[in-house]
């Protein structure tokens, strides 16, 4: 197989080829590494990628096969990892100075599961520092460019993972999603990105930003690649008390053999059933999204309608409060989660501090970037005595309303269709000086995060000037498999023409 065709294989095809001995894991890794050497300088997707490390891991897979060992479902497949997910043998910096050179002593559970499935870890990808941002411009190390249009941002905070896959350097990647950090970069880079239900994937080893919202999510070129990754990394974990088993009892009759919902048969899900009713918050979309996005949304609606899906207009009132709610809760949790970076035990430590106070203030002042400091200040404020109830308490109440509103809506429709982002990818530097503008770009992804429900972003079309536009599906609890089925159907009938038709 040529190097190009090796890179074109789906994850399951690649793993099968390795298991069957049609291709070696080293060949597969080399195909991606060679391509990476050419394109990475213009993209900047990675914070850490060592050719020798990757080849050595690939070599081990080949040796295991040679010894006749059974290989897992990701045998020899390179997977890029967002650099806020702990990996032994590689740094985990969260794109922050304060964790420069930090090497975890334990793999994240998701990483351990990838290794057990035979995956080859393919470097660590760039992000907005600690996941705080929507453009990957908040990395302490370098910006990442959108491979589809290099003057645009790749989205964030999992912008490095999205760019690595979109530029063909890796076939798939892990990201993490706190308020849209998997879905938004997937949309900006023309990929499928899944935010699993909260707790579906263990957070053990995911460096915490906002613990009640964080979830690791797969990013890939197709719903099936994403599904395969999800199936490998998900499941309850004794190291994370907020992790949960899949297939809850709320859906009697469902098999629980695969995480996140209904039974799935063989690889091809292109004939999986579509939902009978989807909700569409049309007024919210018309009010908040740009014209390109509204047009692609209408085209996507049309595709579903043409395939027998009833589209029902819904009103989301509480969800419109998601931006303010999210920034209070996420920053409150972040201010506490990031307290451990104090220069005492690990990470960056300010030199020649005279007092303890000075050690803290200088370490944190020098080690954190501007956006992280802004969030810590905001989060500290909203938890302060005298302000707690007005901010954090109120935000929790609104969060409950958002959750119950979505639950109510989703009891009447099987999913909600809406855009992932209000606009196509914006130019580098355009919003980096205006945090509020940046925050508002997350308005369509935040409600699912606050409610903890699964949501998937998929490529649905293009803007007038050829930029990718992603649509999003929210699902009920435990509906990841259904969401991926629907995206799979959409892909199979629209593949090759860049979107809905």
């Amino acid at each position, binding site marked *: 197989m040529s190097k190009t065709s090796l890179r074109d294989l789906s994850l399951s095809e690649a793993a099968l080829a390795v298991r069957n001995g049609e291709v070696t894991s080293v060949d597969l890794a080399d195909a991606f590494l060679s391509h990476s050497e050419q394109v990475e300088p213009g993209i900047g997707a990675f914070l850490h990628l060592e050719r020798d490390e990757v080849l050595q891991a690939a070599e081990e897979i080949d040796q295991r096969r040679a010894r006749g060992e059974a290989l897992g479902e990701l045998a020899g497949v390179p997977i890029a990892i967002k650099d806020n*997910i*702990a990996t032994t043998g590689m740094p*985990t910096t*969260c794109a922050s100075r304060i*964790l420069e050179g*930090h090497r*975890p*002593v*334990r793999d*994240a559970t998701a990483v351990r599961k990838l290794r057990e499935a035979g995956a080859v870890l393919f470097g660590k990808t760039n992000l907005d520092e600690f996941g705080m941002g929507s453009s990957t411009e908040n990395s302490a190390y370098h910006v990442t460019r959108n491979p589809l249009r290099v003057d645009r941002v790749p989205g964030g905070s999992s912008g490095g993972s999205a760019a690595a896959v979109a530029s063909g350097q890796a076939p798939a990647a892990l990201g993490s999603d706190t308020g849209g950090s998997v879905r938004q970069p997937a949309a900006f880079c023309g990929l499928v990105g899944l935010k699993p239900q909260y707790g579906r994937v263990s*957070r*053990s*080893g*995911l*460096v*915490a930003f*906002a*613990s*009640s919202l964080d979830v690791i999510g797969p990013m890939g070129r197709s719903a099936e690649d994403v599904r395969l990754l999800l199936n490998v990394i998900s499941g309850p974990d*004794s*190291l*994370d*008390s*907020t992790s949960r088993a899949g297939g809850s009892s709320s859906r009697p009759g469902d098999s629980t053999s695969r995480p996140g919902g209904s039974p799935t048969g063989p690889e091809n899900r292109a004939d999986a059933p579509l939902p009978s009713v989807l909700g569409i918050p049309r007024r919210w979309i018309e009010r908040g999204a740009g014209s390109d996005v509204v047009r692609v949304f209408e085209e996507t609606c049309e595709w579903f309608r043409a395939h027998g899906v009833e589209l029902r207009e819904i009103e989301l009132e509480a969800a419109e409060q998601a931006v303010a709610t999210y920034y209070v809760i996420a920053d*409150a*949790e972040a*201010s*506490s989660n*990031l*307290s*451990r970076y*104090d220069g*005492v*035990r*690990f990470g960056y430590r300010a030199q020649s501090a005279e007092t*303890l106070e000075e050690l*803290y203030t200088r370490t944190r002042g020098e080690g954190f970037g501007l956006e992280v400091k802004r969030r810590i200040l905001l989060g*500290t404020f909203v*938890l*302060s*005595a005298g302000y*707690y109830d007005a901010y*954090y308490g109120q935000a929790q109440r609104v969060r409950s309303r958002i959750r119950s509103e979505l639950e109510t809506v989703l009891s009447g429709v099987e999913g909600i269709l809406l855009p992932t982002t209000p606009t196509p990818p914006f130019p580098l530097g355009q919003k980096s000086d205006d945090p509020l503008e940046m925050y508002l770009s997350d308005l369509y992804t935040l409600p699912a995060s606050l409610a903890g429900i699964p949501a998937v972003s998929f490529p649905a079309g293009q803007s007038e000037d050829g930029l990718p536009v992603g649509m999003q599906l929210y699902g009920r609890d435990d509906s990841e498999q259904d969401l991926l089925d629907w995206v799979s159907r959409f892909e199979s009938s629209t593949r090759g023409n860049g979107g809905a038709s």
Partner: protein
Amino acid sequence: MNADFADRQRSAKSEESGKSAKVAGRYDLVIGLEVHAQLRTASKLFCSCPNAFGHDPNRNVCPVCLGHPGALPVLNTRAVDLAVLLGEALGCEIRETSVFARKNYFYPDLPKGYQISQFEHPICVGGAVPLGDGRSVGLVRIHIEEDAGKSKHPEAGDDTESRIDLNRCGVPLVEIVGQPELHSAEDAGLYLSSLKRIVEFLDVCDGNMEEGSLRCDANVSLKPAGAAELGTRTEIKNLNSIRNLERAIRFEADRQAKILDDGGTIDQETRLFDEASGRTRSMRGKEDAHDYRYFPDPDLPPVFVSDDRRTRIAAVMPELPLQRQSRFENSFGLSPDDAAVLTQTRALADYYDAVAESAPDPVAAANWVRTELLGRLSAEGKDITSSPVSPRELTALLKALDDGTLSGKLGKAAVAEMVETGDAFAVVVERNGWKVVSDTGQLAVWVAEAIEKNPSEVASYRAGKTSLLNFFVGQVMKASRGQADPGALRPVIEKALED
């Protein structure tokens, strides 16, 4: 023994119990205690590191208790069970749902920058600690939290760097918060020793105050005698023994009284007790108080204790100290004082129970345990948990005393030797050839010897000084090394001297 509950009970009773102690007659003293007890679990509260004391610094640590990025806490359910057991023992309401929160502050021995503790929703509310004299002191709450590490700051000279030991980080604690219902240093001491005895009996905590498994802070305030409203309080820390708790309260009450006498006001502050000087000194004022920014810990789901779980835990409740004390009085006929002494610790009470079970006379047994055994043990620097004399061996001795084959004097010697050597009772008797001799033939031999050696006393006796009989008894006891049966001996001597 350090936790002398019985002594405290005696001294508290001798005062006007139940009545507020007046400070200089003008003020009512009001005290509330906050007690931290380390739970006796095998592992820490949120990770699998051993919960153990005395290891090399920073050995019992892992990514979770070191606060490494990405590491998450997982609750040790055994700690919850122990808190429920304690709550049940103290008559608390056990909350079906309790919530862990984060208490945020920066300190080098606090790796995460926050302590995980229950705040708004503790596991137990209400309840009371009995003082043992019919009175009891109400509890506000009991909650579970993790311990912090230990900072060691340089002491004069040698080391110039502060050091941190994180072994204790994440060790499970319960904080037992009492109502401000104590009114004298003695009652505060009684409360703490009663609580200490209870946690030990439940095996919830080892109660060791020197090692810090049991720690106490005291909130102390004065109010004009009879006034309803509480005065401004100070919180006193670093009270590492019951005696120091009492000393600190007395000092603090006097200090506050002087300030109030002079028309001054009390600053709400945290004060540190200095053991050497017996004084308290200001540690930090109200203005330095932290804003802990408590909020529910999103890493930990609420703790759920079902009725069923609560019932199962309560069902295996061991006998509590006061219950045991009254059983010792009622079943064994012990005096209240003996019963209190023998229930000072669970180990001692268990020991006595084992002895009393088969001893011929439980009251005599109590006396032997209390006076002879404990006395000998403490002379050897041991306590009941390290007693070389098992209850079985002590019972063997008590039986020999009861059936007259061993004299009381030899009994005492036997206890001493058993404690010293750890040998069984029979071995000690055998080695020393100790046996009560009442055979008149052997007694007559010893008596004849005594008569032969003391001719002038024999003459005096025969001249009418019959009180010398005791002199001859003593001589024979000495010659027989205590083996002669004094009862059988007297007639033999009388007969021999009359001949």
